[in-house]
């Protein structure tokens, strides 16, 4: 079946530093979404990409459908960035917009 492999599974950052999360796809994907799941469990939309790169504040995401991966870069991490980050992708073979989720990256930002 369609699979999304997300790494790392857990990440600890000091405030002010940065890192990248990555999702690899085992099948051709049409688009990718990135979410932050906060402490209350709500999924917050970060990015929707059908191709290329988008940036929003301290976050930047890239989706390369040909090479089957997407990345989420976080810079100047803040305490409120802590939470679980998910990528989710739509298979190009699907006739509708079902999302296949990665297993998530648990991010902890520490002082």
């Amino acid at each position, binding site marked *: 079946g369609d699979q999304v492999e997300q790494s790392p599974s857990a990440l600890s950052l000091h405030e002010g530093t940065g890192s990248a999360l990555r999702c690899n796809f085992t099948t051709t994907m049409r*688009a990718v*979404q990135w*979410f932050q799941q906060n402490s*209350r*469990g*709500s*999924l917050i*939309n970060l990015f*929707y990409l*059908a191709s290329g790169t988008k940036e929003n504040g301290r976050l930047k995401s890239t989706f390369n459908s040909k090479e089957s991966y997407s990345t989420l870069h976080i810079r100047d991490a803040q305490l409120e960035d802590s939470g679980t980050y*998910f990528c*989710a992708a*739509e298979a190009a073979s699907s006739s*509708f*917009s*079902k*999302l*296949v*989720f*990665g*297993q*998530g990256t648990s991010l902890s930002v520490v002082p």
Partner: protein
Amino acid sequence: NAGVIQTPRHKVTGKGQEATLWCEPISGHSAVFWYRQTIVQGLEFLTYFRNQAPIDDSGMPKERFSAQMPNQSHSTLKIQSTQPQDSAVYLCASSLGYEQYFGPGTRLTVL
């Protein structure tokens, strides 16, 4: 815009009882999705409606689970004869195009 509304936020049922979960999509959105989140399986697609019509329920357990969308303002997910393994957070999402927006979820606990 209130976002996707899900009720109840928490539900506790006894084994064998019925549970009905409600979702109100964002006004004007034509597609409604149901997903389930557990620690073991992560986030999984259950079913999808577009313009109130069921499009695909390939992720739904074949027994005991059913979903309906009687009008454009709400959808229900019904679980009959609930079992402990049905315990999960059930998430509803809606979309106008491709990007999906999620509700806060209903945490179902089956004792």
